[in-house]
């Protein structure tokens, strides 16, 4: 017997018929308006650009409709390198390997920081957020400096001068390091919310720690694991920067899409490749939804629990600590290389100490930095709240088109940035939606491209919270909006926080999604870093990245503080003094 085999406690709303759903909706105008609003923004900023991409892909040069390009891509061995079919399988293979590696590492960190009494948990928490907070190609550059043919480690330490770092191996390493924080953020939320008493019960009945992990903790964290695998898989598929820099001969779909669009000016094939990329993503997503729906993961039931000791046995904590330390060392080595590069005259050649690159960043790069911070700060809360709202609506409410909402909210996340960028450019370049050249188009891109992480972490925690808690609130007379604000959001504070941080960070570090959307007024930090990188100014790029990292760390601290203040659970047991006061007032 495992915990997942508990009979699913169907929320009563599930049993209601469609007609009743509509009737329920009409009685709750706030809910109805929210649903309509969410549909409206999803339609404008997700579905419309997607339709544009489809139109571009299926329209021939003469203006007719044709699926010939799709057939060509699927059947031909020519045209691509080595062929689009091989490229497709390359992407799949890479995605699967990276998804497994990154989720395993993310789980390790999440488990260690939430369910044990290991030392240095705050520290490891910081380490696990470090890799997402830099533009990705920087890690790729580090790996070349460390492990390339003239690399500091391969050549400098071992004297190997023909080590091939480009290709599948290098990509797996860099992508796993870049994406494990996504898995970590998703898993931390769920592991934190597993009620200790479930594990305690097993322990007091005599189960060993290993047995408990296998039969209780691991199965209960399955929704998180699956979400993490899915998110990492999708990110690996649509990642452009890493394969472009160190993919070498290993071609992937996202890079091919970029290649045909900007190199051959062929938006038809490029859009088609993006559509092909959508298939595995949507399939993985549907599989996840179908699979999770059948099981119950409720452990937070609102019944009183006690604080108890977490895992502290030496034979468990020490190996965990060692494993975390090894990953940390790897992360530090990569970022240390960047940090080092930022302070030397010419990376790789002249190791004289200098601060001139930072002077460069704060003079010529200042505008772009401020723009990035401003837009990220606007889009993060919009994305964070919208993500929670969509998660709440799709998990807890029943209304027509619910699944459509769930799927469409994932789409912009799943296509390569360059194609999303094209979709936005073509869609929002004429009236009445003339947004090209404004900040709104960038905010919209950031919001809708990053929202799935907020939705996913929201969904997984929601699945572990018993609906009875909300019902208690509704029965006591609160409406849906009040329940959402006062009950749901505070209980999902961590998931909300993860969503906010992730949105902010991705907005600060997006590369290919903004290529066609930045404007003279709204130039962004990452496009500057990429431009510096292209003109071989590695040290300047490194300094830029360091400044970005510091800004993001400060921002995470600010977000944490705001979330804690805003969402501190308001209700608490009245203190003795208050009761006395109330009584005495009553007597008067």
């Amino acid at each position, binding site marked *: 017997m495992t915990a997942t085999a508990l009979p699913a406690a169907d929320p009563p709303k599930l049993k209601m018929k469609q007609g009743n759903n509509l009737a329920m909706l009409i009685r709750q105008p706030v809910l109805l308006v929210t649903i309509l609003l969410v549909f409206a923004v999803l339609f404008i900023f997700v579905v419309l650009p997607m339709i544009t991409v489809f139109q571009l892909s299926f329209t021939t040069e003469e203006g007719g409709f044709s699926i010939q390009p799709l057939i060509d891509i699927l059947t031909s*061995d*020519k*045209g*691509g*390198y*080595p*062929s689009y079919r*091989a490229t497709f399988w390359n992407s799949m293979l890479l995605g699967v390997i990276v998804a497994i590696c990154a989720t395993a590492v993310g789980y390790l960190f999440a488990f260690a920081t939430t369910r044990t009494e290991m030392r240095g948990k705050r520290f490891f928490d910081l380490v696990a957020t470090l890799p997402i907070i830099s533009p990705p190609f920087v890690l790729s550059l580090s790996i*070349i400096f460390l492990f*390339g*043919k*003239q690399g500091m480690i391969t050549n400098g330490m071992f004297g190997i*001068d*023909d080590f*091939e770092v*480009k*290709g599948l191996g290098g990509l797996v390493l860099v992508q796993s390091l870049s994406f494990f924080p996504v898995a970590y953020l998703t898993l931390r939320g769920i592991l934190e919310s597993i009620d200790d008493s479930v594990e305690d019960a097993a322990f007091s009945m005599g189960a060993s720690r290993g047995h408990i992990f296998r039969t209780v903790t691991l199965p209960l964290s399955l929704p998180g694991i699956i979400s993490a695998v899915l998110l990492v898989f999708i990110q690996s598929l649509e990642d452009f920067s890493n394969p*472009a820099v160190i*993919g*070498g*001969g*290993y071609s992937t779909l996202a890079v091919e899409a970029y*290649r045909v*669009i*900007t*190199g*051959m*000016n062929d938006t038809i094939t490029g859009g088609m490749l993006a559509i092909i990329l959508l298939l595995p993503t949507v399939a993985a997503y549907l599989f996840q939804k179908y699979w999770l729906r059948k099981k119950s993961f409720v452990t937070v039931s609102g019944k009183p629990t006690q604080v108890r000791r977490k895992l502290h046995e030496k034979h468990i904590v020490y190996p965990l600590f060692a494993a975390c330390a090894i990953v940390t060392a790897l992360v530090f080595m990569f970022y240390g290389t960047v940090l080092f590069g930022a302070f030397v005259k*010419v990376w*790789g*050649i*002249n190791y004289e100490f200098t601060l001139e690159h930072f002077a460069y960043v704060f003079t010529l790069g200042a505008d772009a930095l401020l723009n990035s911070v401003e837009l990220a700060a*606007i889009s993060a809360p*919009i994305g964070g*709240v919208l993500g929670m709202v969509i998660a709440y609506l799709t998990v807890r409410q029943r209304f027509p088109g619910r699944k459509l909402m769930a799927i469409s909210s994932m789409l912009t996340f799943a296509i390569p940035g360059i194609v999303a960028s*094209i979709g936005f*450019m*073509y869609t929002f*370049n*004429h009236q009445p939606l*003339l*947004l*090209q*050249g*404004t900040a*709104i188009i960038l*905010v919209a891109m950031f919001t809708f491209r990053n929202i799935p992480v907020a939705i996913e972490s929201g969904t997984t925690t929601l699945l572990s919270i018993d609906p009875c808690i909300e019902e208690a609130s509704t029965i006591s007379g609160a409406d849906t*909006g009040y329940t959402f*604000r006062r009950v749901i959001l505070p209980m999902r504070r961590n998931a909300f926080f993860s969503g906010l941080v992730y949105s902010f960070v991705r907005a600060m570090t997006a590369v290919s999604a903004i*290529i*066609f959307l*930045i*404007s*003279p007024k709204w130039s962004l930090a990452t496009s500057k870093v990429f*431009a*510096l990188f*292209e*003109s*071989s100014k590695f040290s*300047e790029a490194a300094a830029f990245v360091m400044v970005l990292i510091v800004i993001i760390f400060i921002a995470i601290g600010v977000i944490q503080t705001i979330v804690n203040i805003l969402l501190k659970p308001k209700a608490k047991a009245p203190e003795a003094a208050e009761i006395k006061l109330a009584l005495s007032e009553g007597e008067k």
Partner: protein
Amino acid sequence: MKRIAICAAATALALTFSACSSSSDTIKDADGNEVAKELTIYTAMSEDELPTYFGGFEKATGIKVNYVRLSAGEMVTRIEGEKENPQATLAYAGASDAYIQMAAEGLLSKYASPELANIPDQYKDPDGYWNPIYVGAISFACNKDWFDKHTDVAIPQSWDDLTNPGLKGMVGMAHPSTAGTSYTVLATIMQLKGGKNIDDADTWAYLKKLNENVPQYSKAGSAPAQDAAMGEAAVGITFAHDALKIKAKGYPLEVTFPNDGTGDELGAVALLNNPNASEADIAAGKKFIDYMLSKEGQELYIDSASYRVPVNTQAKVADGLVTLDQLKIIDYDAKWAAQTKKELVAKFQEIVDNGQNVKTS
């Protein structure tokens, strides 16, 4: 209610950003004509050189340049995507084949600068859409450290030297479909060895042989020079100005030119076909083109340490810079190259860079 209020505030905030984006102020130039105070440009020029050129232009004319920097391919895609509602007045830098393509699609508007009088005819656009701003020859960026260690391999001086088996896996070249630079290389080899006959068997035999020394075709045109600088490759096929700029930073590069003939890239600038642009915008755009082609503008290549070769015969050249008259330059046919691109790249993928030749790495 509070939530709605926050949303409304955010929207209002966003709208104020968009509202203050257009400023249509004008100034009077020396002849008393109205020109826009600010000019919007899409550019494929190296980011680090831009402050020199735009600063010089602003000092000379008082016009401020707002720009978006993209790669040449991205620039064309963007201008094409925005053609119904263009956002910029001018496209600046990037090789002439991009401009030939844009002209053919009706994305450019004609302008022949009076400064063209000082520029040799071979660099001019016969159709009068774009104006040339610099030339650069294809070169070999060689990593000196590598050649010091491998004394049995000579530093390449000709195209055939690149097929030396000693250089196996050590020649850096970008993919002709992604990098304009590399397409110029391919088109040069095709013109030099095959006389523009894209079915010439000997030329393809040469490219296949070269392919054995190229571990993979990188995506970015800037990558081969970087690879050579960092020792990832012994030789990178690239434009001389890109290689010399990296060399000037201290990387151990030696730049050589193929003595059997090399191709060149012609950088260009052009007005976009933009119905939204006012008379004053267009006047400012023309001023920009005139300035960049003038002696003063062309000599900025010295200040920016860009190693680009000016096209204006009046302009001074940086000390030690190899000018094109010192090299054996083929009569590169940019128009032929632009028109043949799709076919030639497809053939390249079919014959050279196909599935059978994938190297396990």
